[in-house]
């Protein structure tokens, strides 16, 4: 659980990475969930992990969307890596307090995934900053 990494994304890129950009609106949650569910299934995660990841994306994106500046774009990137799947979601926010460690939200996210961290990815439009949440789910096969 690290905090404040900069230029977060670059280390995870994989040839199978999938990126979705939508307006940071709650109406778009269903699409984000579905994309993550589809990628997770395609990537051969077990069903529990896929279901948990969908719930985690719901939770993380809701947090971000609620802190997002008007007209912000939410970026969701799924990085399928050899041992794990990393989901990064980020958007332009006016406040950095998206999920505070120790909050119920944080507890939910850490129960649903194997690792959660937040990151700061520089300046967004105007006075905003890009804040994000990164979630890691390990593949069932890597646990054997």
């Amino acid at each position, binding site marked *: 659980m690290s905090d404040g990494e900069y230029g977060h994304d670059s280390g995870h890129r994989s040839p199978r990475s999938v990126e979705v950009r939508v307006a940071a609106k709650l109406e778009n949650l*269903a699409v984000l*969930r*579905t994309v993550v*569910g*589809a990628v997770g*299934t*395609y990537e*051969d*995660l*077990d*069903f*529990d*992990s896929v*279901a*948990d990841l*969908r*719930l985690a994306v*719901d*939770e993380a994106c*809701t947090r971000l969307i*609620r802190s997002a500046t008007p007209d912000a774009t939410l970026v969701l990137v799924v990085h399928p890596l050899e041992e794990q799947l990393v989901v990064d979601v980020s958007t332009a926010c006016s406040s950095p307090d998206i999920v*505070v460690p*120790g*909050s*119920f*939200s944080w*507890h*939910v996210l850490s*129960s649903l995934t194997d690792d959660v961290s937040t990151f700061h990815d520089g300046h967004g439009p105007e006075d905003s900053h890009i804040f994000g949440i990164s979630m890691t789910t390990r593949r*069932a*096969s890597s646990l054997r």
Partner: protein
Amino acid sequence: MFRTLQGLEEGSAKFLRQRDSIVERCLPLADHIARRFDGRGEPRDDLVQVARVGLVNAVIRFDVDAGSDFVSFAVPTIMGEVRRHFRDNSWSVKVPRRLKELHLRLGAATAELSQKLGRAPTPSELAAELEMDRDEIVEGLVAGSSYNTLSIDGAGGGTEEAPAIADTLGDVDLNLDQIENRESLRPLLASLPERERQVLLLRFFESMTQTQIAERVGISQMHVSRLLAKSLMRLRDQLE
């Protein structure tokens, strides 16, 4: 009972009475089958109804002299009726028939594999089990999940009351120590419907997997997921 029925004149009052009592005797069988299809987006009452129709048909069609016992004749008949109901009613999105059938096979194989593995299976494991192509499985699962999304968003359907389940689960000991906003959380948890609360506590405070919860509570894993999504959303709204 069927022997007695056979000895009666078809259509006579005695015949009908005997047939009714057979149906009545077998109602638990129909209800049991209906329960197996619970949590797939169809209201439970409808499923029970459909399964019972299947039972009535099975009783009418059963031929004592054909050699098999009634249960092994009735189960596929009832299942067939329930499957047909799913095919006809629940797919508001146009999904190819092939995928719908696949979805049902996947459900059965998933349950079996979960038992064997002690955790939920991956698509690869399902493909091996069903001797099918992995891509086909993935396609089926993705179609299945969009089907399920729809039914989540559909009207509640009032299938949430399940006193029997609530009774069988003891109160989960609530350990909120690691949570800072626990004081505001506690009353919100208490206000959740019984089953939602149990599922939520088992997942987030007892670290059970969704599959384990499904087994313990007696609903499908998809239903567990749906209940979790619902209660998390409620908590998010109220914790603001």
